[in-house]
């Protein structure tokens, strides 16, 4: 399974994400510069966290204009897996690949801590290795993770099972309905604020991120033969 990790000016979790794919899955992974729009040879795309374009104007807004977003849109249309982590999630919102928008955390401060999440839907390529309602611990680190969408969209997300992760316990940013991660209707595009790549070894304080990566690989193997 060949992964692409797009790099925008200001991305800063790109290396961590690449390392996680190497360490957890031992699969090939390529960093792709934001000016490239051809992602045909990849099976999955993980848009890493960071501060693309310094988070200027609105987080994710300037990155959403990059040529590579064409390739990502195409990949999503083809049913390939697209995962946006933190800033990657914000970029997916700004491009419209996922519904809604991000606001500044309700307490206005940046927040970095290990947050407790509950896995709300395991019928997705990203979560099939988890059990329904499983409580996991994954670090968050953001100043704009206060998810917003209108009432109608929220109902749709709820009804169609598109809410994949919720904060369990404290809501660290004011997100509506404790939303920490959502997917599209087709379930092949996931955006999440927490950082699974920071929870893969015991010495990091949690290994709960591992299952997210292994789920992606398992899904891909099931759908493409054990290539």
């Amino acid at each position, binding site marked *: 399974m060949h992964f692409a990790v797009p790099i925008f000016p200001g991305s800063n979790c790109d290396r961590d994400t690449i390392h996680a794919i190497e360490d957890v899955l031992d699969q090939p992974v390529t960093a792709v510069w934001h000016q490239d729009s051809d992602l045909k040879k990849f099976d999955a795309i993980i848009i890493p966290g960071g501060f693309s374009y310094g988070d200027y104007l609105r987080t994710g807004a300037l990155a959403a*204009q990059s040529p590579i977003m064409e390739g990502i849109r195409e990949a999503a249309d083809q049913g390939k897996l697209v995962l946006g982590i933190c800033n990657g999630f914000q970029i997916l*919102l700004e491009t419209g690949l996922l519904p809604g928008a991000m606001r500044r*955390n309700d307490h206005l401060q940046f927040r970095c801590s290990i947050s407790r999440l509950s896995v709300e839907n395991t019928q997705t390529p990203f979560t099939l290795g988890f059990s329904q309602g499983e409580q996991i611990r994954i670090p968050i680190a953001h100043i704009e993770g206060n998810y*917003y969408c209108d009432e109608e969209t929220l109902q749709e997300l709820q009804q169609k099972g598109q809410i994949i992760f919720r904060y369990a316990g404290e809501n660290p940013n004011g997100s509506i309905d404790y939303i920490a991660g959502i997917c599209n209707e087709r379930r092949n595009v996931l955006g999440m604020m927490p950082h699974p790549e920071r929870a893969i070894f015991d010495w990091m304080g949690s290994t709960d991120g591992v299952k997210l990566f292994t789920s992606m690989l398992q899904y891909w193997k099931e759908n493409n033969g054990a290539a």
Partner: protein
Amino acid sequence: MFKATIFVTLKESVLDPQGVAVKNSLHSLGLENVHEVRIGKRLEVFLDQVDRKQAEAQVQMMCEKLLANPVMENYRYELEEVS
């Protein structure tokens, strides 16, 4: 040359965390009669352009494509010719 002054504001229905925080701070400064604060952006964009119509089209396009997020923001602009 044209100067566009663009105002981007949060939609009424969207809770503005910064506005709420600033209101609370104003209260603790003793200004308890402040009952709402809303925070938006004001952008000045200078365009090398002679034609007003075209300038207008360009400003419209930059607002829609980039400067405002239609999910939660509204925008309006003023355009003036400057030298």
